[in-house]
């Protein structure tokens, strides 16, 4: 594709700077907006985590940089204020969960990949898509603005349990900061709703000819089901948040009952229950975990299949397990509330459903491993991160089985074990999936390649530091070290963990430095990276059939027709080890590739059937020379 043709494409859309880069309705630009906003939020969230890790490792030491960052009010003499420590933890959680791993991950890759991989010119409604980004942007601004209010940002934890969140006078962070938090989340839900409606209708209605649901790449399946989850769970948080806003602003008592407040005496609230909020919150909160991890799993499926040069193992099983995870995620929320108090029978039900989720998750893990097995693996940067995801998904998933047990949870609840578990399984795993996606689709998004050696350095530093930060937390948690504590100086029984905390903080700083390398790589490669070819990874999916210049409408002329599934790698019927989806079947004319065998041979030699039974059968078959 020459630049001349690209020019003629552009001629039809006279674009100003504002319509091209700011209020763009092109899904590729919106995906970049989501990605870069997500990266900025990620940097802020990570900086916060390093700030409070410094406090955990050196509780009494002053760091001038903290005073410089947060001012003498929140970090007098460079030592974090205890209330502000909680505020940082809250904001770190909120930013990472909602802004980076929900909007940053789904927003980026759903916008980029759904139209491209389904074969559509754009999203179903480009205008709503633009609105979706701007609601998200506004929401980010509102959330960050709460850092600058007098009483500080929300500080009751990202789960905003009442009564701390429902009584504006309960503590400093319950005031204006909490209100801004709720406003930000309402805007966020609007963004997620606009986006989700678009994603779902694009997948259902805008697929190109021949792209049946069973031929969809697994990324599309994952992003589609993620959108469904978001669509059905976020409104419940909206309902819960509405009740909370009423409690805060209009004197109702939905979540409040019989409270004595030091500053205000006995309050007049009667009849509510804070447990109601926990139910409503976790009805979102648990699907939210899968909203975070499922796009990452989809990206991994794609990256692993492409770079193993093998069809994904068990495509149908992968789709069914995604469906299973999506369904089950709605009936397990109670496992966050074992200690809150519930009918033991109900607890047992939630225990069982929680443990059942291990089945589809294990199916996915084994399918990744089976895809890797004897593959012709290309260790690209994206592949490294995808394998990293599999590693984190296993180690984090296994501790999930501990936590799903209502009995064990009595010991482990609210300890560092929980922190370690969810940071590994949904924090690190999802971030690794996101980074795999960034490395894999950077050539598509920006038309240039990322620097490969820097990518390896980034991977190894991130991988090692992530395990160093989060793995020791499991042992701390088993020993009973509670989470959300400002300092352990007055609790000598936790003294043995001081040195571990120092190591973890060092590793966190190392991880932060690794992300600086990535940031440099990301922003410099945009301008000075090696020019990308049209299909740098030799992948099958439709996005690599579009020109590198990223034109409006994605394809010049006709949209390609799809003739095969997305995973025709190393098919012995073809000479090339990949076969893009838009190439017609063998038998009809193949212009791009010459087939090695004649037509008769092709019919006899079937594609390697990646099913479990074939694997078992081949296992017992005597080896031939």
């Amino acid at each position, binding site marked *: 594709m020459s630049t001349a043709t690209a020019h003629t494409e552009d001629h039809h859309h006279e674009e100003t700077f504002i319509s091209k880069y700011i209020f763009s309705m092109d899904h590729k630009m919106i995906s970049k907006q989501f990605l870069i906003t997500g990266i900025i939020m990620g940097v802020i969230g990570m900086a916060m985590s390093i700030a409070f890790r410094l406090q955990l490792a050196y509780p009494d030491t002053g760091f001038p940089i903290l005073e410089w960052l947060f001012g003498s009010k929140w970090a007098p003499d460079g030592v974090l204020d205890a209330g502000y420590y909680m505020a940082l933890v809250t904001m770190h959680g909120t930013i990472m969960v909602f802004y980076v791993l929900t909007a940053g991950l789904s927003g980026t890759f759903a916008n980029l990949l759904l139209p491209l991989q389904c074969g559509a010119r754009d999203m179903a409604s480009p205008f709503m898509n633009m609105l979706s980004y701007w609601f998200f942007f506004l929401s980010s601004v509102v959330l960050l603005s709460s850092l600058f209010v007098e009483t500080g940002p929300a500080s009751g934890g990202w789960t905003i349990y009442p009564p701390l969140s429902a009584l504006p006078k309960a503590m400093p962070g319950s005031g204006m900061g909490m209100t801004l938090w709720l406003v930000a989340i309402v805007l966020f839900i609007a963004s997620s709703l606009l986006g989700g409606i*678009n994603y779902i209708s694009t997948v259902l209605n805008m697929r190109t000819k021949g792209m049946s649901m069973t031929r969809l790449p697994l990324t599309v399946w994952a992003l589609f089901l993620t959108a469904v989850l978001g669509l059905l769970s976020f*409104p419940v948080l909206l*309902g819960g948040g509405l009740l909370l806003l009423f409690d805060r602003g209009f004197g109702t008592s939905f979540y409040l009952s019989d409270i004595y407040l030091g500053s205000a005496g006995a309050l007049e609230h009667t009849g509510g229950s804070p447990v109601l909020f926990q139910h409503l919150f976790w009805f979102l909160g648990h699907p939210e975990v899968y909203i975070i991890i499922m796009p990452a799993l989809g990206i991994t499926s794609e990256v692993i299949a492409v770079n193993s040069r093998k069809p994904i193992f068990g495509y149908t099983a992968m789709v069914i397990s995604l469906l299973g995870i999506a369904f089950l995620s709605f009936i397990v929320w109670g496992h966050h509330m074992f200690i809150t108090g519930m009918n033991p029978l109900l607890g047992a039900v939630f225990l069982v459903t929680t443990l059942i989720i291990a089945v589809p998750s294990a199916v996915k893990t084994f399918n990744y491993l089976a895809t890797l097995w004897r593959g012709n693996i290309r260790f690209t940067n994206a592949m490294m991160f995808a394998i990293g995801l599999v590693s984190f998904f296993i180690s984090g998933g296994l501790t999930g089985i501990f936590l799903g047990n209502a009995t064990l949870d009595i010991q482990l609840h609210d300890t560092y074990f929980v922190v370690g578990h969810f940071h590994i399984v949904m924090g690190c795993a999802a971030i690794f999936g996101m980074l795999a996606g960034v490395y894999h689709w950077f050539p598509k998004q920006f038309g240039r390649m990322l620097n490969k050696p820097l990518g390896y350095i980034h991977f190894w530093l991130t991988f090692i530091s992530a395990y160093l930060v989060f793995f020791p937390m499991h042992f701390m948690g088993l020993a009973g070290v509670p989470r959300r504590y400002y300092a352990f100086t007055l609790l000598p029984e936790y003294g043995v963990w001081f040195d571990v905390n120092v190591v973890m903080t060092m590793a966190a700083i190392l991880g932060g430095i690794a992300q600086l390398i990535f940031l440099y790589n990301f922003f410099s490669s945009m301008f000075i990276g090696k020019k990308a070819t049209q299909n740098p990874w030799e992948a099958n999916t439709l996005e690599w059939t579009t020109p590198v210049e990223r034109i409006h409408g994605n394809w010049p002329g006709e949209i390609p027709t799809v003739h095969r599934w997305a995973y025709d790698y190393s098919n012995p019927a073809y000479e090339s080890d990949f076969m893009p989806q838009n190439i017609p079947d063998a038998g009809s004319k193949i212009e791009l590739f010459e087939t090695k065998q004649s037509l008769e041979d092709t019919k006899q030699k079937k594609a390697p059937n990646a099913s479990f039974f074939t694997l078992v059968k081949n296992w017992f078959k005597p080896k031939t020379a």
Partner: protein
Amino acid sequence: MSTQTISKSSTWRGGNSPFKLSYGKLMMWIFLLSDAFTFSSLLVGYGAIRYSFPSTEISQIESLDLHFAENVQDKFANGADAHHGEHFIPALREAGVFNEIQWPSPDLVFNHFPFAHGLHLPLIFVSLMTLILILSSVTMVLGVEAGQRGDKKAVSKWMLWTIIGGFAFLSCQAWEWTNFITAGATPWANPYGPPTFAALFFLVTGFHGFHVFSGVLLNIIVYINNLRGTYEKRGHYEMVEKVGLYWHFVDLVWVFVFTFFYLI
């Protein structure tokens, strides 16, 4: 490889929607599904709070005879046009029917009717509201049907009736709220019983009323567009169908609100 401006119609040229719907209508369905979850969360919250209170027992009401309200008037001898809340509530509080611990029976709370002060007419007014809303759904169906025939005039007529129905419902709701508020109910206080009853009433019916109000606005936009012939030029009346979906949904939600809040 000549390039053409990519218009909406050439956006998609293959594949089949599994639901045989245009993407616009599909989006409306998806939105409604999502909104259904919002209402469900509110109703579930209502259920959780409501059943943490014991209900008014039938035996408590049985001891008062059916014409209790009129007896109250006799007892206070204050003329038939005195405001309902002034005597009815104190009498029932005195009788122990309305108290802070028990969830009040809705048919003792919502028993007013315009120009019928002091009469005990349980749920008659809210039933009328429900009837109005359901009738407006009927007119909406007729409007959609007219749209499918391409009958611009009939679309106008039925949309107008639907808008009138929506406004009528909203007015009724305004009257009911006024009545409830003048009796002394606020989100934090409720003369009929636990304050949460009033809070939930304002929240649930208010949120629904907000949806009805948005629906009326949408209907007005569609009505004006139709008058200007936008849909005639477009060749189809799908927009009428889409707002119709929304309107029916709002109606359906009201049926649930009515059932859970008033009847049970």
